[in-house]
């Protein structure tokens, strides 16, 4: 069966109840090292420059961190953990599909020393938002992932290439 075409619509996921319902923009993803990890829910975070992953995924996907691409300290939750980055492949899994319905790409993934969030991965600007056009709507409680060029088609705006990102879609 053919993989459903983008856009893919992901319902917000409810978090633990607080003073009011907390809704999180979540997508389904998988990390590919020497093996494919168990699929997980990843937080879509436009405020993060990086894609970060929980340390347990190192063994789950069999990731070699012996020779990281680079290591930097990031400011996370008032701490400054060392984060080791390596190039890996990530799969975005279709929200209603099985594990064979996915889009896959390669990017840098950082592994902090410590991890507290409920989501095993955080998808940031470099590594996710440079691959797709991502829209969120609170009332619809949806995250919609479209092809990378959809933003340009909708708004007619040239995407800057100052970060070395190349266009992937028709303008």
């Amino acid at each position, binding site marked *: 069966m053919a993989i459903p075409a983008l856009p893919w619509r992901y319902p917000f996921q409810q978090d633990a109840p607080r003073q009011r319902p907390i809704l999180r923009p979540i997508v389904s993803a998988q990390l590919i090292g020497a093996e494919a990890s168990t699929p*997980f829910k990843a937080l879509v975070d436009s405020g993060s420059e990086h894609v970060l992953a929980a340390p347990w995924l190192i063994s789950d996907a069999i990731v070699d961190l012996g020779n990281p691409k680079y290591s930097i300290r990031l400011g996370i939750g008032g701490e400054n953990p060392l984060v080791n980055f390596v190039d890996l492949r990530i799969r975005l899994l279709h929200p209603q599909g099985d594990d064979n319905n996915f889009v896959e790409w390669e990017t840098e993934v950082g592994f902090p020393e410590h991890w507290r969030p409920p989501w*095993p991965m955080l998808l940031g600007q470099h590594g996710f938002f440079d691959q797709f056009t991502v829209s969120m709507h609170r009332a619809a409680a949806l995250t919609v992932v479209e092809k990378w060029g959809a933003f340009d088609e909708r708004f007619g705006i040239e995407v800057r290439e100052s970060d070395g990102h190349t266009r992937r879609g028709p303008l």
Partner: protein
Amino acid sequence: MRIRKQWTKRVSRLYRGKMSARDEHLKMEQAFAECAGQWVAVDRKTGDVIAARNTPYELSAYIKSEGIHGVDVVRAPSEQEPEMVGFG
């Protein structure tokens, strides 16, 4: 803790029986109360929680050993945990 273990066993048995009655499975919202702090496997299509373990290592090993597909792993945060703002 005893309740959590019993719940896990019950759901595991249900899954082995081919995920029969949907009502028998927890929804994510219920998981916050019944297995807060645990790592859970959520069916991607239905949102049902089909397994829970104390660590992601245990849960992933269970999913792989049982050949379970179409689920996503996430931790069910406790109501006592501080609400995360950004990447806490």
